[in-house]
């Protein structure tokens, strides 16, 4: 099996792929990026927390026109994972408004998004519809 690397460092691969956030130890605000301090309370203590892998689609758009090289159409969304908002694509679903809806229940999944010169696969994540 090819070597794999997560597309972003807040995606944890393995048997149970999930996202991990930096949570402020003072106020509980959560962030996915490298932090200098907390944007909510200004303090600088953080701890890693696992983000639930199931959630609800709170907003989406179907991008039909993108920058050169970005395949379209794709569904971009904000998913509410038990109180933590996550930015992601919706995948494994036709990119049309008949199939995508607000309030949809979804779960995290991963996919190969590219391979580098040494054969390492970049693994991205998205959310797919939860089976009824």
């Amino acid at each position: 099996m090819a070597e794999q690397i997560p597309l972003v460092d807040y995606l944890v691969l393995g048997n149970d792929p999930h996202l991990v956030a930096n949570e402020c130890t003072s106020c509980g605000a959560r962030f996915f990026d490298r932090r200098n301090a907390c944007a909510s309370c200004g303090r600088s203590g953080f701890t890693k927390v696992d983000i639930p892998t199931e959630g609800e689609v709170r907003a989406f758009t179907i991008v039909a026109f993108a920058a050169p090289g970005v395949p379209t159409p794709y569904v971009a969304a904000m998913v509410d994972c038990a109180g933590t908002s996550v930015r992601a694509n919706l995948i494994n679903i036709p990119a049309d408004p008949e199939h995508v809806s607000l309030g949809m229940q979804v779960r995290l999944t991963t996919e190969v998004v590219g391979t580098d010169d040494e054969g390492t696969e970049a693994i991205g994540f998205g959310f797919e519809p939860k089976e009824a």
Partner: protein
Amino acid sequence: MATDDVWVLGISMTKFGKHPDKDMVDLASEAVLGALADGGVTMADMGVVAAGSLMAANAGMGQQVQKQLGQTGVPVYNVANACATGATALRVAMLAIKAGETDMGLAFGVEKLSGAGLLSGGTRKDDSGVYAPSGRYGAVAPVDGRIGTDIMPGVFAQIGMEYGHRHGGTSFELFARISEKNHAHSTLNPLAAYSKKMTLEEIMGDFMVAYPNTRPMCSANCDGAAAAVLVSGAKLATLSLEQRRRAVKVSASVLTSDPWEEACQVLPDVNTLTRNAATLAYEQAGVGPDDLDLVELHDCFATAELVHYDNLMLCEPGGAVDFFNSGATWRDGSMPVNVSGGLESKGHPIGATGIANVWEVATHLRGEAGPRQIEGAKVGLTHVIGLGSACGVHILEKSAA
């Protein structure tokens, strides 16, 4: 007129659209000369210059325009603040007057965007080399289009959809109807980049950019400039009756940034800072939404206009859909919104936008808007928002002189 008030003495905008034969200095100069003439003053009267341009943020536009119109040696502030750049320039000139450094100042904004496509979102090439995490998310490859979208039509589409998820009632057709209104309004505005009426079918059937925003539901990239001369109340009291009669009072001037909210670094929260700005502005002006005769708000996309009805408190909380469906925001409704045609048809030369919307409202307050005049307009509000985020709200009042 209270001596600590600030007034718009002169104001002007160029026609928005394609100006292939004019550079940014030409466009800015046209607007500035227009504003000076409108106010009956000259560059020599200006004690401060604030110049706004986003794409040419490092070009020193203020000094470039001085070098064409008058190098008087006064302080120049070149400002950039996303789509709130023009409103920020206006505020900078106002702050200098409020601080007592001068009694008259010039603010202008200019942009050349004709033919520009998407203003955000990363070009992607085939992955090559060896993956190595970089940046604040430790990304090994571009994420635009892989982890959500960076393109503005898509970001603002989600902002409108999120409102629909919270309050219900939204649809592709509803958002398209907002665009239909603004395109209908634009037919009365000779300075609009596009002034063609569009049917609902034409709007919905046009090129889809990011569902539910089709091309005519997006702000129009174009060239343009706008400029304003501001004056202190004390100075205005010494000017002619005609200048006092046409002066427009700036009853409120507010700039906010986005306070931290859950999700705000995931999908930009354009709501909280707009609501905060509006609340402060109504307080400063001592007026409420019911007192407004017209509103020019930041319809960078049709999906954005809807949420700002609520954010600016023009309707009941959560009631933006019903409010729009009542017809209130059409020019013959109870709360005319974007009678200029809005950014979707008037156009959005970014640096100019936050002064051009003040020009629109001021022109109605002066009773000089011709066929598109909102009769008897006495109070109006302007709003811009730049992602990042910055929100500018101004409330303007007709002179009692």
